[in-house]
Protein backbone atom coordinates (compact mmCIF):
# COMPACT_ATOMS: atom_id res chain seq x y z
CA UNK A 1 0.00 0.00 0.00
CA UNK A 2 1.21 3.49 -0.84
CA UNK A 3 2.38 5.62 2.05
CA UNK A 4 0.05 8.52 1.22
CA UNK A 5 -3.02 6.24 1.05
CA UNK A 6 -2.05 4.68 4.37
CA UNK A 7 -1.59 8.05 6.10
CA UNK A 8 -4.96 9.22 4.76
CA UNK A 9 -6.62 6.03 6.01
CA UNK A 10 -5.14 6.55 9.49
CA UNK A 11 -6.36 10.15 9.57
CA UNK A 12 -9.84 9.15 8.45
CA UNK A 13 -10.48 5.93 10.34
CA UNK A 14 -8.26 5.89 13.44
CA UNK A 15 -10.92 7.23 15.81
CA UNK A 16 -13.67 5.04 14.32
CA UNK A 17 -11.56 1.94 14.90
CA UNK A 18 -10.50 3.11 18.33
CA UNK A 19 -14.15 3.47 19.42
CA UNK A 20 -14.96 -0.01 18.14
CA UNK A 21 -11.92 -1.50 19.86
CA UNK A 22 -12.72 0.43 23.03
CA UNK A 23 -16.23 -1.02 23.25
CA UNK A 24 -14.62 -4.48 23.34
CA UNK A 25 -11.50 -3.85 25.42
CA UNK A 26 -11.61 -2.72 29.00
CA UNK A 27 -8.28 -0.97 28.76
CA UNK A 28 -7.34 2.05 26.71
CA UNK A 29 -3.90 0.59 25.87
CA UNK A 30 -5.44 -2.65 24.58
CA UNK A 31 -7.75 -0.69 22.30
CA UNK A 32 -4.77 1.21 20.90
CA UNK A 33 -2.90 -2.05 20.33
CA UNK A 34 -5.88 -3.42 18.43
CA UNK A 35 -6.01 -0.30 16.24
CA UNK A 36 -2.28 -0.54 15.54
CA UNK A 37 -2.63 -4.19 14.53
CA UNK A 38 -5.56 -3.37 12.25
CA UNK A 39 -3.58 -0.64 10.49
CA UNK A 40 -0.55 -2.90 10.22
CA UNK A 41 -2.74 -5.45 8.47
CA UNK A 42 -4.08 -2.73 6.21
CA UNK A 43 -0.54 -1.73 5.23
CA UNK A 44 0.40 -5.30 4.44
CA UNK A 45 -2.79 -6.41 2.73
CA UNK A 46 -3.01 -7.06 -1.00
CA UNK A 47 -6.76 -6.39 -0.99
CA UNK A 48 -7.81 -3.93 -3.66
CA UNK A 49 -10.37 -1.59 -2.15
CA UNK A 50 -13.11 -0.32 -4.42
CA UNK A 51 -13.59 2.88 -2.40
CA UNK A 52 -13.10 4.41 1.02
CA UNK A 53 -16.27 2.82 2.38
CA UNK A 54 -15.04 -0.62 1.34
CA UNK A 55 -11.78 0.02 3.17
CA UNK A 56 -13.65 1.25 6.25
CA UNK A 57 -15.79 -1.89 6.42
CA UNK A 58 -12.69 -4.06 5.97
CA UNK A 59 -10.94 -2.20 8.79
CA UNK A 60 -13.97 -2.52 11.08
CA UNK A 61 -14.09 -6.28 10.49
CA UNK A 62 -10.36 -6.66 11.19
CA UNK A 63 -10.60 -4.48 14.30
CA UNK A 64 -13.58 -6.44 15.63
CA UNK A 65 -11.77 -9.74 15.10
CA UNK A 66 -8.54 -8.46 16.64
CA UNK A 67 -10.40 -7.03 19.62
CA UNK A 68 -12.21 -10.32 20.13
CA UNK A 69 -8.94 -12.25 19.93
CA UNK A 70 -7.14 -9.96 22.35
CA UNK A 71 -9.88 -9.32 24.86
CA UNK A 72 -11.31 -12.81 25.02
CA UNK A 73 -7.96 -14.34 25.97
CA UNK A 74 -7.56 -15.98 29.37
CA UNK A 75 -5.00 -13.37 30.37
CA UNK A 76 -7.29 -10.43 29.61
CA UNK A 77 -10.24 -12.02 31.37
CA UNK A 78 -8.42 -12.97 34.53
CA UNK A 79 -5.74 -10.35 35.10
CA UNK A 80 -6.53 -7.06 36.82
CA UNK A 81 -3.91 -4.34 36.42
CA UNK A 82 -2.37 -2.95 39.61
CA UNK A 83 -2.54 0.57 38.28
CA UNK A 84 -6.11 1.79 38.49
CA UNK A 85 -5.47 4.30 35.70
CA UNK A 86 -4.85 1.37 33.39
CA UNK A 87 -8.50 0.35 33.60
CA UNK A 88 -11.48 2.04 32.06
CA UNK A 89 -10.75 5.73 31.57
CA UNK A 90 -13.63 8.06 32.41
CA UNK A 91 -14.43 10.71 29.83
CA UNK A 92 -15.65 14.21 30.33
CA UNK A 93 -19.26 13.80 29.32
CA UNK A 94 -21.40 16.92 28.86
CA UNK A 95 -24.35 15.55 30.85
CA UNK A 96 -25.23 12.62 33.16
CA UNK A 97 -27.27 10.88 30.45
CA UNK A 98 -24.09 10.42 28.43
CA UNK A 99 -22.27 8.95 31.38
CA UNK A 100 -25.16 6.59 32.11
CA UNK A 101 -25.39 5.49 28.50
CA UNK A 102 -21.63 4.89 28.39
CA UNK A 103 -21.78 2.72 31.50
CA UNK A 104 -24.83 0.85 30.22
CA UNK A 105 -23.22 0.11 26.84
CA UNK A 106 -19.96 -1.01 28.43
CA UNK A 107 -21.86 -3.44 30.62
CA UNK A 108 -23.58 -5.07 27.64
CA UNK A 109 -22.30 -8.47 26.50
CA UNK A 110 -19.55 -8.09 23.89
CA UNK A 111 -21.65 -9.52 21.07
CA UNK A 112 -24.26 -6.76 21.60
CA UNK A 113 -21.81 -3.88 22.03
CA UNK A 114 -20.49 -4.10 18.48
CA UNK A 115 -23.95 -4.29 16.90
CA UNK A 116 -25.24 -1.36 18.97
CA UNK A 117 -22.18 0.74 18.14
CA UNK A 118 -22.30 0.06 14.41
CA UNK A 119 -26.01 0.78 14.34
CA UNK A 120 -26.16 3.94 16.44
CA UNK A 121 -22.77 5.52 15.89
CA UNK A 122 -21.70 4.42 12.42
CA UNK A 123 -25.33 4.37 11.25
CA UNK A 124 -25.04 1.12 9.34
CA UNK A 125 -28.20 -0.77 8.46
CA UNK A 126 -28.87 -4.27 9.80
CA UNK A 127 -27.92 -5.70 6.42
CA UNK A 128 -24.61 -3.83 6.34
CA UNK A 129 -23.78 -4.88 9.91
CA UNK A 130 -24.52 -8.47 8.95
CA UNK A 131 -22.09 -8.13 6.02
CA UNK A 132 -19.36 -6.54 8.10
CA UNK A 133 -19.57 -8.99 10.98
CA UNK A 134 -20.31 -11.89 8.63
CA UNK A 135 -23.39 -12.97 10.53
CA UNK A 136 -27.01 -13.55 9.50
CA UNK A 137 -29.32 -10.53 9.30
CA UNK A 138 -31.76 -12.20 11.64
CA UNK A 139 -29.00 -12.70 14.20
CA UNK A 140 -28.12 -9.01 14.04
CA UNK A 141 -31.77 -8.05 14.37
CA UNK A 142 -32.18 -10.26 17.43
CA UNK A 143 -28.97 -8.96 19.04
CA UNK A 144 -30.00 -5.36 18.36
CA UNK A 145 -33.41 -5.94 19.89
CA UNK A 146 -31.97 -7.56 23.03
CA UNK A 147 -29.35 -4.86 23.42
CA UNK A 148 -32.00 -2.13 23.16
CA UNK A 149 -34.10 -3.93 25.75
CA UNK A 150 -31.16 -4.09 28.17
CA UNK A 151 -30.37 -0.42 27.61
CA UNK A 152 -33.97 0.50 28.21
CA UNK A 153 -33.99 -1.39 31.52
CA UNK A 154 -30.84 0.40 32.64
CA UNK A 155 -31.49 3.87 31.27
CA UNK A 156 -35.29 3.95 31.62
CA UNK A 157 -36.59 7.33 30.40
CA UNK A 158 -33.22 8.37 28.94
CA UNK A 159 -33.48 5.66 26.28
CA UNK A 160 -36.44 5.94 23.90
CA UNK A 161 -38.48 2.96 22.81
CA UNK A 162 -37.86 1.85 19.24
CA UNK A 163 -39.50 -0.72 17.00
Amino acid at each position, binding site marked *: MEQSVYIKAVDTHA*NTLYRIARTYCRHHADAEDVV*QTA*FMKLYETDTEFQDDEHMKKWLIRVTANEAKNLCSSFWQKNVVPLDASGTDQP*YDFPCPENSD*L*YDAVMKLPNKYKMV*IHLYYYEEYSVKEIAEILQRKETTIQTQLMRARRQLKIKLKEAWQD*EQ
Partner: protein
Amino acid sequence: MNNKQLYKETFDAMQMSEESIRKVKNMSEKMNQKRRLKTGFRAAIAAACLVAVFAIGNAAVYASTGSSLVERVSLYINGEKTDVDRITREKDKNGNDYYKIELDGKKEKSAGISTAGDVLNPDHVETPDSAKSENIPARLEKEGRKIYLLMEEGEKKIDITKDFEDGRAEGEFQHSGKTCRYIVSGTVEEHTIDIEAE
Protein backbone atom coordinates in the same frame (compact mmCIF):
# COMPACT_ATOMS: atom_id res chain seq x y z
CA MET B 1 -32.71 14.07 21.73
CA ASN B 2 -33.23 10.67 20.09
CA ASN B 3 -31.20 7.55 20.83
CA LYS B 4 -28.81 8.03 17.91
CA GLN B 5 -28.02 11.61 18.87
CA LEU B 6 -27.49 10.65 22.49
CA TYR B 7 -25.28 7.74 21.51
CA LYS B 8 -23.20 9.87 19.14
CA GLU B 9 -22.78 12.62 21.67
CA THR B 10 -21.64 10.10 24.26
CA PHE B 11 -19.14 8.25 22.13
CA ASP B 12 -17.77 11.36 20.44
CA ALA B 13 -15.82 11.84 23.63
CA MET B 14 -13.83 8.69 22.81
CA GLN B 15 -10.82 9.86 20.85
CA MET B 16 -7.51 8.21 20.17
CA SER B 17 -4.65 10.34 21.46
CA GLU B 18 -2.69 12.39 18.93
CA GLU B 19 0.50 10.65 19.96
CA SER B 20 -1.01 7.22 19.29
CA ILE B 21 -2.20 8.36 15.86
CA ARG B 22 1.31 9.65 15.11
CA LYS B 23 2.74 6.29 16.22
CA VAL B 24 0.37 4.43 13.91
CA LYS B 25 1.37 6.70 11.02
CA ASN B 26 5.07 6.08 11.69
CA MET B 27 4.51 2.34 11.78
CA SER B 28 4.51 2.21 7.99
CA GLU B 29 8.10 3.49 7.84
CA LYS B 30 9.19 0.96 10.43
CA MET B 31 7.42 -1.80 8.52
CA ASN B 32 9.19 -0.69 5.33
CA GLN B 33 12.54 -0.90 7.09
CA LYS B 34 11.64 -4.32 8.47
CA ARG B 35 10.52 -5.45 5.03
CA ARG B 36 13.81 -4.32 3.49
CA LEU B 37 15.75 -6.11 6.21
CA LYS B 38 13.61 -9.19 5.74
CA THR B 39 14.21 -9.15 1.97
CA GLY B 40 17.96 -8.82 2.48
CA PHE B 41 17.94 -11.55 5.08
CA ARG B 42 15.94 -13.84 2.80
CA ALA B 43 18.38 -13.22 -0.07
CA ALA B 44 21.31 -14.02 2.24
CA ILE B 45 19.59 -17.21 3.41
CA ALA B 46 18.85 -18.22 -0.19
CA ALA B 47 22.49 -17.63 -1.14
CA ALA B 48 23.69 -19.59 1.90
CA CYS B 49 21.30 -22.44 0.99
CA LEU B 50 22.62 -22.52 -2.58
CA VAL B 51 26.20 -22.62 -1.32
CA ALA B 52 25.28 -25.36 1.16
CA VAL B 53 23.49 -27.40 -1.53
CA PHE B 54 26.50 -27.02 -3.83
CA ALA B 55 28.90 -28.01 -1.04
CA ILE B 56 26.78 -31.04 -0.12
CA GLY B 57 26.45 -32.00 -3.79
CA ASN B 58 30.14 -31.62 -4.28
CA ALA B 59 30.83 -33.76 -1.21
CA ALA B 60 28.38 -36.40 -2.44
CA VAL B 61 29.97 -36.45 -5.88
CA TYR B 62 33.41 -36.63 -4.32
CA ALA B 63 32.31 -39.50 -2.07
CA SER B 64 30.85 -41.50 -4.94
CA THR B 65 33.30 -40.74 -7.74
CA GLY B 66 36.45 -39.64 -5.97
CA SER B 67 36.52 -36.35 -7.86
CA SER B 68 34.77 -33.12 -7.04
CA LEU B 69 32.44 -31.03 -9.23
CA VAL B 70 34.99 -28.27 -9.48
CA GLU B 71 38.51 -29.23 -10.28
CA ARG B 72 41.64 -27.21 -10.48
CA VAL B 73 43.47 -28.02 -13.66
CA SER B 74 47.23 -27.89 -13.36
CA LEU B 75 49.92 -28.29 -15.94
CA TYR B 76 53.53 -29.26 -15.37
CA ILE B 77 55.64 -26.96 -17.50
CA ASN B 78 59.34 -27.57 -17.36
CA GLY B 79 58.67 -29.63 -14.26
CA GLU B 80 56.95 -26.74 -12.52
CA LYS B 81 53.31 -27.16 -11.45
CA THR B 82 51.24 -24.32 -12.84
CA ASP B 83 47.51 -23.74 -12.27
CA VAL B 84 45.36 -23.19 -15.35
CA ASP B 85 43.00 -20.23 -15.11
CA ARG B 86 41.25 -20.44 -18.45
CA ILE B 87 41.33 -22.49 -21.63
CA THR B 88 40.07 -20.92 -24.85
CA ARG B 89 39.86 -22.32 -28.36
CA GLU B 90 41.37 -20.00 -30.98
CA LYS B 91 42.57 -20.04 -34.58
CA ASP B 92 46.08 -19.28 -35.78
CA LYS B 93 47.12 -17.38 -38.93
CA ASN B 94 46.76 -20.50 -41.04
CA GLY B 95 43.23 -21.15 -39.78
CA ASN B 96 44.25 -24.06 -37.59
CA ASP B 97 42.55 -24.49 -34.26
CA TYR B 98 44.54 -24.39 -31.06
CA TYR B 99 43.78 -24.10 -27.36
CA LYS B 100 45.12 -21.13 -25.49
CA ILE B 101 45.72 -21.73 -21.81
CA GLU B 102 46.01 -18.85 -19.38
CA LEU B 103 48.21 -19.62 -16.43
CA ASP B 104 48.05 -18.01 -13.00
CA GLY B 105 45.97 -15.11 -14.34
CA LYS B 106 48.75 -13.91 -16.65
CA LYS B 107 48.01 -13.84 -20.32
CA GLU B 108 51.62 -13.35 -21.30
CA LYS B 109 52.52 -16.51 -19.44
CA SER B 110 50.53 -18.84 -21.63
CA ALA B 111 50.92 -22.26 -23.12
CA GLY B 112 48.96 -23.95 -25.87
CA ILE B 113 47.96 -27.38 -27.08
CA SER B 114 47.34 -27.69 -30.79
CA THR B 115 44.30 -29.67 -31.91
CA ALA B 116 46.70 -32.24 -33.31
CA GLY B 117 47.81 -32.79 -29.75
CA ASP B 118 51.16 -31.05 -29.95
CA VAL B 119 52.21 -29.29 -26.78
CA LEU B 120 53.53 -25.76 -26.93
CA ASN B 121 55.66 -24.72 -24.03
CA PRO B 122 55.58 -21.17 -22.64
CA ASP B 123 58.28 -20.16 -25.11
CA HIS B 124 56.09 -21.36 -27.99
CA VAL B 125 58.68 -23.96 -28.94
CA GLU B 126 56.81 -26.95 -30.16
CA THR B 127 57.56 -30.41 -28.92
CA PRO B 128 55.69 -32.62 -31.35
CA ASP B 129 53.70 -35.47 -29.89
CA SER B 130 54.32 -37.49 -33.00
CA ALA B 131 58.03 -37.12 -32.53
CA LYS B 132 57.65 -38.19 -28.95
CA SER B 133 55.55 -41.15 -29.91
CA GLU B 134 58.13 -42.18 -32.49
CA ASN B 135 60.90 -41.40 -30.05
CA ILE B 136 62.67 -39.22 -32.54
CA PRO B 137 64.59 -36.53 -30.76
CA ALA B 138 65.27 -33.76 -33.21
CA ARG B 139 67.32 -30.59 -33.09
CA LEU B 140 68.95 -28.05 -35.38
CA GLU B 141 72.64 -27.68 -35.61
CA LYS B 142 74.63 -25.06 -37.42
CA GLU B 143 78.00 -26.01 -38.82
CA GLY B 144 79.58 -23.05 -40.52
CA ARG B 145 77.06 -21.93 -43.06
CA LYS B 146 75.26 -25.23 -43.13
CA ILE B 147 72.14 -25.97 -41.12
CA TYR B 148 71.39 -29.59 -40.28
CA LEU B 149 68.37 -31.26 -38.82
CA LEU B 150 69.70 -33.91 -36.50
CA MET B 151 67.51 -36.84 -35.49
CA GLU B 152 67.96 -40.04 -33.60
CA GLU B 153 70.76 -38.43 -31.60
CA GLY B 154 72.71 -37.45 -34.64
CA GLU B 155 72.38 -40.73 -36.50
CA LYS B 156 70.20 -39.07 -39.09
CA LYS B 157 71.43 -35.75 -40.37
CA ILE B 158 69.55 -33.82 -43.04
CA ASP B 159 70.97 -30.73 -44.65
CA ILE B 160 68.18 -28.18 -44.77
CA THR B 161 70.37 -25.11 -45.47
CA LYS B 162 68.80 -24.17 -48.81
CA ASP B 163 65.30 -25.20 -47.86
CA PHE B 164 65.45 -23.26 -44.59
CA GLU B 165 66.51 -19.97 -46.23
CA ASP B 166 62.89 -18.76 -46.30
CA GLY B 167 62.44 -19.79 -42.66
CA ARG B 168 60.64 -23.03 -43.40
CA ALA B 169 61.95 -26.42 -44.41
CA GLU B 170 59.90 -29.46 -45.23
CA GLY B 171 60.90 -32.96 -46.18
CA GLU B 172 60.63 -36.68 -45.61
CA PHE B 173 62.83 -39.35 -44.13
CA GLN B 174 62.58 -43.01 -43.29
CA HIS B 175 62.39 -44.16 -39.71
CA SER B 176 61.82 -47.75 -38.62
CA GLY B 177 60.34 -48.54 -42.00
CA LYS B 178 57.94 -45.64 -41.82
CA THR B 179 57.99 -42.51 -43.87
CA CYS B 180 58.11 -39.50 -41.57
CA ARG B 181 57.58 -35.91 -42.54
CA TYR B 182 59.39 -33.02 -40.91
CA ILE B 183 58.57 -29.34 -40.90
CA VAL B 184 61.07 -26.91 -39.49
CA SER B 185 60.07 -23.24 -39.16
CA GLY B 186 61.52 -20.13 -37.55
CA THR B 187 65.21 -19.33 -37.18
CA VAL B 188 68.15 -21.40 -36.02
CA GLU B 189 67.94 -19.74 -32.62
CA GLU B 190 64.16 -19.95 -32.25
CA HIS B 191 62.46 -22.59 -34.27
CA THR B 192 59.75 -25.22 -34.34
CA ILE B 193 60.29 -28.79 -35.43
CA ASP B 194 57.26 -30.82 -36.31
CA ILE B 195 57.65 -34.47 -37.21
CA GLU B 196 54.72 -36.63 -38.18
CA ALA B 197 54.67 -40.27 -39.14
CA GLU B 198 52.61 -40.81 -42.29
